[in-house]
Every structure is written in structure tokens, then in C-alpha cells.
């Protein structure tokens, strides 16, 4: 935890989160145990397709919405 990487502040589903500079979306999802089927990711109110997750680097101030399917009518 005490590495020299710069830290970035982001928001995920309304909650603040600090991540290392250079973190990819895929790494963020893995860290949050959300790297499974049935989710979608939006960054700053724009859908981020799953094929971009490996190379999209998280930026300071990014606003994430990570959603899944739930029961509903």
C-alpha cells in the first residue's frame, strides 16, 4: 500500500474512492470484485464499452456508474 504511485480520487456509484495513477477500468473492476458477467460501466455519464476496459486509464475526478441487472417490472 505504501508505494510511490500518485493517487487519484474518483467516485464509484456515488461513493468516493482513491486509486493508483495508471489503474485501468479492468483493474478497478477486479479490485472491487465486479469483474464478472452482467455489468455495464459508465464514466462521466458516457457508456464505456467492455472492449475498452483493458486500456481505458482511470483519470482524477472520473465519475463511475457500475450497474447490473436486478428484478423489476
Amino acid at each position, binding site marked *: 500500500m505504501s508505494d510511490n504511485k500518485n493517487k487519484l480520487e474518483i467516485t464509484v456509484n456515488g461513493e468516493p474512492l482513491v486509486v493508483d495513477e495508471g489503474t485501468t477500468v479492468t483493474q478497478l473492476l477486479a479490485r472491487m470484485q465486479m469483474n464478472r458477467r452482467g455489468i455495464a460501466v459508465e464514466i462521466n455519464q458516457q*457508456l464505456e464499452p467492455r472492449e475498452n476496459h483493458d486500456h481505458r486509464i482511470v483519470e482524477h475526478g472520473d465519475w463511475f456508474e457500475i450497474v447490473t441487472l436486478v428484478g423489476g417490472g
Partner: protein
Amino acid sequence: MDNVLVSCEQADEFKVGNHVLHSRLILGTGKYDSFEEMRQAIEASGTACVTIAVRRERLHDSSGRNILDYLDADNLLLLPNTAGCYDAETAVRCARMGREILRGLENPGANWVKLEVLGDSRTLLPDPIETVKATELLVNDGFQVLCYTSDDPIIARRLKNAGATAVMPAGSPIGSGLGILNQNSLQIILEDLKNDDPDYPVIVDAGVGTASDVAIAMELGFDGVLLNTAVARAKNPIKMAEAMKLGVEAGRLARLGGRINKAKYASASSPDVGVITSRDPK
């Protein structure tokens, strides 16, 4: 009896956009006591299509319990919805995320959405202006849009003209169980939308309380019924799911069979001639 229904269904396709459904019942997946109960109710209902909502993933619960583990996504068409959205912009974002999830699951439901843009949290009535706006945006984005709407015939027409794949007026408020409250308006909607386009799908969405409500909707000429609470909150959801299945089939067959006209006076079912007489006529 089964054979009669099967042969009727085969000749009586329910086509919505590019999807052909083998049941005219669409079921919601909310409000069940458990995922297992939901799974059994879906099976008992015979539905081919269930609608699901899009919500934030929980940040602090990694138990991994997921509705997808209880939905037979290989055989069920999933219909993502925008339930809980109160403006067109949020509804469009929600629809795009639903499409992204379904693409990941390789479910054919990725190309459509049940659009719900609410205007008020107490009545859960739709906001007609935002619904029309969202329909236009989603149609432009390539979605097949199934629109939840009120029983207003003019808004229904606007939605069809905006490119909606199906229009889905409420029978009564969502979850109310009041059934079909305004038959007259709903019949006007059916006549208007199907006038030059008899196969255009018009579906009752919301308000159903029990199987007779579903049968009435189908007898009126609706192409299908979408319901959730009436099954999920029934005392026995699995029995009620089967009742809804039979209600849809009965109503549809009655519609195709063609009901008799209503008359003011009686009309005997037995012949007038040949009735026996008394030896001593009065």
C-alpha cells in the same frame, strides 16, 4: 386440449419488432420473496420473455447472488427496462447500459428496451413529454422501443409516430391490481394504432390484479400483457403465474373465436318448434 392451444399458438404468432414470442405474457422479475420463487413462477407462467431493471452494483456485498443465476438466459428473451427513470436523458443512459449488459450475455434482447419515464412517484404515471423525447432518442440509437404509457390515445399515437416498436398502455396504476379501468380509452388506442396496421403490437402494461383482468385485456384485442406484482405478491405466486398463462390463452382464443353481440333481450338456445304440449290446453 393441449393440442388445440398449441395449434392455435403456432398459427398465431406474437411478433414484437424482430422477436417472435411463443407466449403473449411478459413477466416482470421484481418483488418476489426469493429468486427461487421467481424462477418457479416464470416457469409456471410459460412466458418467453421477462423484463429486468438496471441498478447500481452493490459496493459492499460480494456474496455474488445474482438474478442471472436464476434466469434461463438461453431460453428466455430478456427485456431490459428503464424503471425508476424520471427524465429522457437518464432513461437513455439506463437503456444503453442495459444493452451493454445483454450484449455481454449474448442475449438477443440487447436490441430492445421497455421504456418507462415516470412523472410522479406516487402514481407512477408516465411523463408523456419525456417519454416521447426518450423514444425519439432511443429509436435514433437503433433501439426497438416498447413504451409504457398511460391510457391517453393521443400520446399513444405520438409514441407510435415517434417510431416505437410497441405501445404499452397501463390498465391502471403500476402495482395497483385495479385491472382495466378505462376500457373505452384502451379500445380507442387499439382502433387508432391498428387501423391501417393490424399487426402493430399493443400490450397492456401494469395494473393487472388477477387472471380475469388479463383475459379481458386479451378479449379487447391487446396483443399481450406485461405484469409483475399480481404474480409476485399473490399468496401463491406459482399458482397465480399459471392462472395468468391460462387467462392469456383463454382471452386470446375468445378474441379469435369472436364474441357474440350483446343484446337487450333473451334468445333461446333450444328450438321453438316441437315443444310438447298439455292434453288440456289452457
